[in-house]
């Protein structure tokens, strides 16, 4: 049966939740709580504890859909929100406030899960390490090294292709999450680095001046330095995984809401090394398991 996920949000907040909701509700139907009420809903995503408090009575009375009270994911933005959401029996909490999230945060709890505001679906964008970029350039007959300046004026598909193939790239603020996700050795300006909390020489190189030619020269120098490119690429991706990923939290929320089964041991191990769900290796592992479980392989 196709699961139904309802969004319970004020008009002002609904828009900001749509990207995350589309991941949480993928494979299911997404509806508005206001139109459907609780009928037939399997899970609810609430924009804040206030909204959760409003719908709580209806939730408690609702035993439709799967014959159970719908599970609830609630966004929180403060320690008070977190406590309130817990009090209202939220199944799982998430936040876009980085300082609040994770076991190292002030709450010392696994929750709330971090769903960053400028997040990116890392499941769609596997990292491409510099050596693999070199092979891809060779395959496509592109020059080596390939140094590019990529900004948001380019069509989205063109940007991702460029950032996937570049030896090094000068990137603007809008495309920085994508560059970090793809592990592109990247040069940014001071403002972009500062906004994302990036450190010069760790995840990116920061051009000291606004002079674009200086940034280009820095990228050209970077492209010839294999060791530095490899290190920047690795750390850029880790930064994206820790601070920008929305796919991982979405999957965790889906599991908490009962929309996705708990992963098998082999799935957990594949996840640990960030193996894409669509990869040949994931299929191969599932096929091997299917031989034992007598279930059809994927």
């Amino acid at each position, binding site marked *: 049966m196709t699961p139904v996920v309802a969004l319970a949000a004020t008009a002002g907040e609904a828009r900001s939740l749509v990207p995350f909701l589309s991941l949480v509700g993928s494979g299911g139907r997404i509806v508005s709580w206001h139109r459907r009420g609780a009928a037939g809903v399997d899970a609810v995503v609430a924009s804040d504890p206030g909204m959760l408090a409003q719908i709580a009575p209806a939730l408690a009375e609702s035993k439709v859909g799967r014959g159970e009270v719908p599970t609830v994911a609630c966004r929180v933005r403060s320690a008070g929100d977190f406590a309130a959401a817990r009090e209202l029996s939220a199944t799982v909490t998430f936040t876009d406030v980085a300082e609040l999230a994770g076991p190292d945060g002030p709450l010392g709890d696994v929750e709330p899960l971090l769903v960053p505001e400028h997040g990116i679906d890392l499941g769609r964008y*596997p*990292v*491409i*390490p*510099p*050596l*693999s970029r070199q*092979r*891809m350039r*060779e*395959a496509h007959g592109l020059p080596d090294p390939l140094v590019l300046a990529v900004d948001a004026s380019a069509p989205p598909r063109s940007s991702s292709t460029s950032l996937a193939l570049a030896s090094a790239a000068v990137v603007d603020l809008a495309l920085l999450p994508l560059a970090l996700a793809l592990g592109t050795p990247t040069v940014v300006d001071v403002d972009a680095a500062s906004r994302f909390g990036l450190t010069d020489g760790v995840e990116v190189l920061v051009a000291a001046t606004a002079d674009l030619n200086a940034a280009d020269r820095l990228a050209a120098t970077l492209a010839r330095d*294999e*060791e530095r*490119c*490899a*290190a*920047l*690429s*690795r*750390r850029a991706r880790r930064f994206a995984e820790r601070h920008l990923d929305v796919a991982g939290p979405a999957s965790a929320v889906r599991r908490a809401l009962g929309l996705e089964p708990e992963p098998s*041991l*082999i799935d957990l*191990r*594949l996840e*640990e*090394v*960030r*193996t894409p769900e669509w*990869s*040949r*290796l994931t299929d*191969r*592992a599932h096929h091997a398991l299917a031989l034992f479980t007598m279930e059809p392989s994927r």
Partner: protein
Amino acid sequence: MDVLVCSTQVPFMSGGLELMVSNLVDALRGSGHRAEAVSVPAAWDRVRLFDAAMAWRLVPLDAELVIPVNFPAYFARHHNKVPWLAHQHRAAYDALGQPWSDFGVDTASLDDHRQLVDWDIRALAEAPRRYTISGVVADRMRRWCGLDATPLYQPPPLADQLKPRATGAGDHILCPTRLEGNKRPGMFVDGLAAMRNRVPAVLAGRGSLAGELEAQVDRLGLDGRVDLPGFVPDDDLVDLFRRATAVVYSPFDEDYGFVTLQAFLAGVPVVTAADSGGVLEWVEHEVTGLVTDGTAESMAAALDRLVDDPELASRLGRAGRERVADLSWDHVVRTLVGAR
């Protein structure tokens, strides 16, 4: 401490790595640790390449310390994983483009290559400390994975038996190596043919190129001067090292190269090539040996020089022996277990 030394082995193939594992386990036990070698079978063809990696991810490893030594043993999942790497999967790194690498530039190869490099980075990054058998292997990891590692050198096999001869010049030139393409034994034969001095030579070892090399020796008129004994027992090999004027060892981009260290322990200089990788961490031109450009002419010139000048050969050999004097398994064990 309970220590597991983890390696991956293609069944029925055995070489330097298996020897290294055995020596490390012995050394750990000799230092009072409980140590076992753990191996998972692997296949190096691209389609099955990841299977052993996944297996390592799943097997329980109940020990206080896990030491993986090769790809993909470092996919082992353990809180105290300290790799001491002989090599990563070379076909995907330094050997890209070589005839024996099955990573092409087709879409499937590119996908697998991307996945392999990413997996490698993640699995190796899990380790709190990383060591490699040589600077070359550490450099590759730094260049392609963006990860630091420290070279940790080991004594070669037969280290306790290899000693310099008491007096006199050597009576032959020795090249002990597996007879495989990456070891370039043909370079040795070509060099001998171009020499002015008609010195006897021994090309010791087995491998897929044996027949081809015999034909090369015949073709170059070296029959009767070059001995191809195949496998040589340890005692005989020690004697061959002891009596050698020079040892030739010129593989392509070698990871480490026990042969170099064995020659040095026997007080014999090594002639190598400028692209021989880890060998060059030990062979310093005109200090512990001679570095050539790999052509027959330069190889021959280097060998003629050592034959013509026994004092030079002796001086380089002595310097080589001093260079390897401090290598010990005790140091390797103390470093890997994290003892001060």
